[in-house]
């Protein structure tokens, strides 16, 4: 039966998740790039909000959550939200309108490809980006989402736990981002020339709005205004805070000063990492997960990337890919049935099986994302080309892709 409190709470949560993509992610990423590319970077988030909203309504939701076909994909019987009514669908949520579940999930489908854009900032053609994102959402996101969350999805069936999208959202986008970074190649000048963030206050604005919106993302994933939502809220906030402190502490010790970018990045890493675990773990476990997130993502961003010298411009892989991976595995370690009866116990609470399932999910999502992203990029490279030309890259994408500039110069 429809429950008003749950409905109101999930409606507001959906709004909060929308805010994460734009202005949240738009400003987080936009502040990090150079002045001449800020609009093109923000545009990618904003455009995906538009594009995926339509894709989801038209067929994306049906593919991801529609009646199961062979455990791998949803059927097309819900296209155009046909049969998605205001009655609840107990497979997904017994107390809110089915259409609300669909629109809440829409906001996840929107932000996931937007996360990837961190990898190809400052050099990708707009048309190619748009085509890639549409295909990726359809061929990667929708199936993976079905496997993990769809009724009948095969990863769900083997017991994988992913509360709010560690594998579906962060791992899939993060790994794909790495493939993008490798295939697009580095920005001109990277890593020899300095490419400092053009507006760090935007980065902080974006990170703060992401943190705020993440309450809708994780607590909202309880799909009810209940104790589980509260538990997820606390785990989320705690992991974000701890990961940010961890990151800053490492900087303080190793480089002498904690930085704003470190704090912001650490918080986002903590948020990404706690995501799959947020509805299954205690506040103490959330702290440990936050510490892991801070330490491992820091290493990935600062050491691994610099060693391998690929140009994941805004660290979509280091933060979301690695964070999603740790989070999925940590769920296999720290999950507790006393926190969430619908979940399972993890290794530290006597059940080794869960960790296995989580590892399978990680492996499968990584491999599938790599293969599909690779194939899609190859294809688009043939048809449209991936990168703007050198001259356009030098002039900047705001001018060359959108005929606009972000700021005027004269007062």
């Amino acid at each position, binding site marked *: 039966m429809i429950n008003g409190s749950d409905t109101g709470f999930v409606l507001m949560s959906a709004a909060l998740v929308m805010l994460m993509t734009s202005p949240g992610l738009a400003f987080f990423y936009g502040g990090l790039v150079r002045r*001449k590319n800020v609009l093109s970077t923000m545009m990618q988030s904003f455009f995906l909000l538009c594009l995926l909203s339509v894709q989801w309504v038209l067929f994306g939701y049906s593919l991801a959550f529609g009646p199961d076909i062979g455990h791998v994909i949803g059927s097309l019987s819900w296209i155009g939200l046909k049969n998605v009514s205001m009655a609840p669908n107990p497979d997904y949520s017994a107390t809110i309108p089915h259409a609300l579940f669909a629109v809440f999930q829409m906001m996840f489908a929107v932000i996931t490809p937007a996360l990837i854009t961190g990898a190809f900032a400052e050099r990708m053609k707009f048309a190619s980006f748009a085509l890639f994102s549409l295909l990726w959402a359809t061929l990667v996101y929708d199936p993976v989402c079905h496997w993990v969350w769809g009724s009948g999805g095969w990863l769900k069936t083997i017991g994988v736990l992913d509360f709010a999208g560690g594998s579906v959202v962060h791992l899939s986008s993060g790994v794909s981002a790495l493939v993008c970074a490798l295939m697009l190649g580095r920005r001109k000048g990277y890593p020899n020339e300095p490419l400092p963030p053009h507006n760090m206050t935007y980065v902080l604005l974006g990170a703060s709005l992401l943190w705020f919106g993440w309450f809708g993302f994780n607590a909202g994933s309880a799909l009810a205004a209940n104790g589980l939502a509260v538990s997820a809220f606390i785990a989320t906030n705690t992991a974000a805070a701890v990961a940010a402190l961890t990151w800053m502490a490492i900087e303080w010790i190793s480089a002498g000063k904690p930085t704003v970018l470190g704090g912001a990045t650490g918080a986002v890493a903590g948020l990404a990492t706690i995501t799959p675990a947020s509805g299954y773990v205690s506040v103490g476990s959330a702290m440990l997960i936050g510490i892991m997130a801070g330490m491992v993502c820091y290493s990935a961003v600062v050491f691994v990337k610099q060693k391998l010298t690929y140009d994941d411009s805004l660290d979509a892989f280091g933060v979301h890919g690695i964070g999603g991976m740790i989070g999925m595995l940590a769920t296999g370690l720290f999950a507790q049935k006393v926190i969430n009866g619908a979940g399972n116990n993890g290794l530290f609470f006597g059940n080794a099986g869960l960790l296995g399932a989580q590892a399978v999910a990680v492996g499968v999502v990584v491999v599938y994302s790599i293969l599909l992203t690779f194939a899609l990029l190859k294809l688009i490279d043939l048809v449209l080309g991936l990168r703007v030309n050198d001259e356009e890259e*030098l*002039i*900047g994408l705001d*001018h060359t892709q959108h*005929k*606009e500039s972000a700021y005027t*110069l004269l007062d």
Partner: protein
Amino acid sequence: MKLVIAILQSHKLDAVMKALDEREIYLKTVSNVLGCGRQKGVSEVYRGVREAGNLIKKVRLEIAVNDSYLQPTVEAIIKGAQTGKIGDGKIFVLELAECIRIRTGETGGVAIG
């Protein structure tokens, strides 16, 4: 001594700096300017209105050099900034009466480098 002032396309700054470095000309001062030249404004479009503002973002480079460095400086700038297309910019050379290093109070040619 000469004061060389060059107006460049913003995105050519890196190439010019590299060309200067090769000639061991390291000291310079850079600023943002808006240029109005033969180049038509990069037309921007805002709600259908073409803003052919003919003020275009450029970078201004100021380099004080001893006379013997004038030629290499000019060469380096041309090497780094020339595309052959309108908008490449100009170099202006002024006679420099005096140069003083604030740190030491040194004056003249020794203060320049």
